[in-house]
């Protein structure tokens, strides 16, 4: 593995232009001031963040994801490239979903093997032959992007179900503006604060054809015990829409209503943060008390829009991921602007043989896994762990894919010993409405706080940074 590309100092140590001001500022600021602001940031987070949720609760400590005060900077030119690539990718995801639940041309053309779709637990047969309002399935996508050098971004994962983390993007910016106004004054940074407006515009644009002129949008949460409840209430508040639970809704004559103090009120668009499995006990898991009985009937009748649509999990499956370059080409003609990480599909014998031969240098992931669990990071694993994984892999090769260990780019980060490079990734949030695709410049940067670690997941010691996209 070659040395990682540092986003401030590149490969050769010279400061890259986007980081000029930040680098000067880092050299000027006394370490104790930086340290003081760091502690202040944590206090602020507790106040505006956690107090909002559940401070005082025994587990509040764990919910505070570490925040790094040094921003990650992306130049305007880099962002335009990313923006184009993300737009292209999400358009392809939506076309792919419309196709696999509709005409299935891509399967008939043999571009994607059909058993990969039909035998996939994320495939929802209920959605077959079912159209969704305005043909949009993934209204909100969180596309995880990593960078390996000055010119190369890879898409690591497409999150097309209910991607989370956008509240951190918004709060990180809020805290940075409060703590480092002088640093802001030295840059022209594209705003992210309009994300809730863009999201609302997106949701309104996909209301069913039968909806009234001013469609009613709600955010459906599993409730206060869900670990992301804080984000749900935060977003509902910013969107100015009702935060509803299943029990607040009722379906009558295939129309969804919410129970209000003025009687039943029709609901047109549901931004749901409940997984497919739990959304309607009559159709999916009958033991679910979180969902709304009859929701699927209203959905199938075209009387309500679910964002994201039911069945989008088929598009963010890791085995399907490996076909994304072909999928982009199939629907949009051109070459994909954002690369895929080269991926070996262990379901294919030649690929499996290669993977088994090269385990110590590969990352092996479960096809349906997420959150960094159940994966093997070859270079970091012990011999015993590799052998154990080998057995697991041989017994169920279909469940795994493998990728080379990428040298993720690094960014300057506050650590105990001062400022040091740490590996980062980026999750921009891509909104697809009837009219257009909207992307707020930036996203959530996650950083692996442990030296050398490549795992950025918050459940495994990752933190977050504010992400600055420079204007112009």
């Amino acid at each position: 593995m070659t040395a990682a590309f540092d986003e401030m100092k590149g490969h050769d140590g010279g400061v890259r232009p986007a980081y000029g001001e930040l680098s000067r500022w880092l050299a000027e600021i006394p370490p104790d001031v930086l340290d003081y602001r760091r502690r202040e940031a944590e206090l602020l987070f507790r106040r505006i963040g956690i107090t909002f949720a559940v401070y005082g609760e025994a587990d509040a400590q764990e919910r505070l994801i570490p925040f790094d005060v040094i921003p990650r900077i992306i130049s305007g030119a880099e962002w335009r490239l990313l923006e184009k690539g993300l737009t292209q990718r999400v358009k392809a995801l939506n076309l792919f979903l419309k196709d696999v639940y509709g005409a299935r041309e891509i399967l008939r053309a043999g571009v994607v093997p059909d058993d990969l779709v039909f035998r996939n637990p994320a495939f929802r047969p209920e959605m077959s032959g079912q159209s969704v309002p305005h043909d949009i399935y993934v209204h909100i996508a969180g596309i995880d992007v990593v960078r390996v050098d000055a010119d190369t971004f890879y898409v690591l994962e497409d999150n097309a179900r209910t991607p989370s983390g956008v509240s951190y993007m918004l709060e990180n910016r809020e805290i940075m503006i409060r703590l480092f106004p002088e640093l802001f004054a030295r840059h022209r940074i594209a705003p992210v604060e309009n994300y809730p407006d863009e999201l609302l515009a997106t949701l309104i644009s996909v209301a069913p054809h039968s909806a009234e002129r001013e469609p009613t949008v709600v955010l459906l949460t599993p409730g206060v015990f869900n670990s992301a409840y804080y984000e749900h209430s935060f977003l509902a508040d910013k969107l100015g829409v009702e935060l509803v639970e299943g029990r607040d809704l009722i379906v009558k004559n295939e129309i969804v209503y919410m129970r209000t103090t003025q009687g039943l009120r029709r609901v047109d668009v549901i931004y749901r943060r409940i997984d497919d499995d739990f959304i309607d006990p009559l159709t999916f898991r009958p033991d679910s008390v979180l969902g709304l009985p009859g929701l699927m009937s209203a959905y199938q009748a075209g009387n309500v829009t679910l964002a994201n649509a039911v069945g989008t999990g088929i598009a963010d499956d890791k085995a399907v991921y490996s076909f994304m370059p072909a999928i982009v080409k199939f629907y949009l003609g051109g070459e994909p602007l954002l690369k895929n990480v080269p991926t070996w599909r262990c379901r294919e014998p030649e690929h499996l043989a290669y993977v088994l031969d090269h385990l110590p240098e590969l990352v092996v992931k479960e096809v349906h896994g997420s959150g960094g669990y159940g994966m093997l990071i070859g270079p970091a694993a012990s011999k015993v762990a590799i052998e154990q994984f080998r057995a697991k892999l041989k017994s169920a090769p279909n469940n795994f894919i493998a990728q080379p260990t990428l040298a993720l780019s690094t960014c300057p980060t506050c650590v105990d010993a001062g400022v040091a490079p740490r590996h980062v990734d980026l999750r921009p949030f891509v909104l697809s409405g009837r009219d257009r695709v909207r992307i707020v410049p930036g996203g959530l940067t996650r950083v692996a706080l442990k030296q050398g670690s490549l795992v950025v997941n918050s459940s495994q010691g990752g933190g977050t940074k504010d992400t600055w996209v420079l204007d112009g």
Partner: protein
Amino acid sequence: MLSRTADNLYWLSRYVERAEYLARILDATQRLSSLPLAYVGSTNEWESAVATAGCATAFFKQYDEANEENVTDFLAFSTANSSSIRACFEMARSNARSVRTALTVEMWDAINGTWLELKRYGNGPTSREEFSRFLRWVQESSLRYDGSAYRTMLRNDAYWFSRLGVYLERADNTARILDVKYHLLLPADERVGGPLDYFQWAAILRSVSALNAYRWVYRESLKPWLVADLLILKEEMPRSLASCYEAIVRNLDQIAGSYGRQGPAQRQARGIRTRLQNSRMDGIFQRGLHEYIGEFITENNGLGGAITEQFLI
């Protein structure tokens, strides 16, 4: 607004108000029981406290005797009693959490701070002094919540439903406190209007912070019918039934005005208010104060049901 949100706000206020009421009852009872035994002989103020709180049946399922220790534990700290002060604060906090965005920061801080502080009292105080401090703290917590709601909430349906909870609960509580006297026995050799009788009425007035008000309004010694007059019919007395109903009708009118339609709850509340306005003390005492209060509590509960039916489910 969502019915569940309105319901949560309404009950949040009711629970906080109820916690304060329980603290007031316990405070009054402590005062009554601190008379020298030689002076009053055998009395039953702790039993009357349980009866006043409306949970005698549940209490005697758990305890054989209504003494200070048992009643204090049951009304203040018990987890088995779903209407103890602790349970009220816990339910208030859990309601607050699920409607966090409908609350102002000050309201949330008040209720969450109370809930955090509650843990410090553990399973009960170790001394009478500490218990008195606890009771004072409960009342202060309620004042803080009430004040922050009053001073920071936007005047819209969320505010009106939260106020409805306060006044409906307060009306119920005032009625029950007035009924304490019915449950308190006067020893056989004590006469009505005698010193103990006087002391009991004074304790009741003090428990609703109305002793001074009584003197200002009537300028004469304590008379049972005047105490009842103050707590039932005087609209200028903030905890009186008349005052609560003035506020209930006003808040329901605000809701009706903003929603552009009347409903059964409005009509029912106005009916109760009219009956209060037409009541006279001699009539009430002729029929029996205890019976009058019993009927009022039933009507008040009925209105609670009508509000739930019309708005909250």
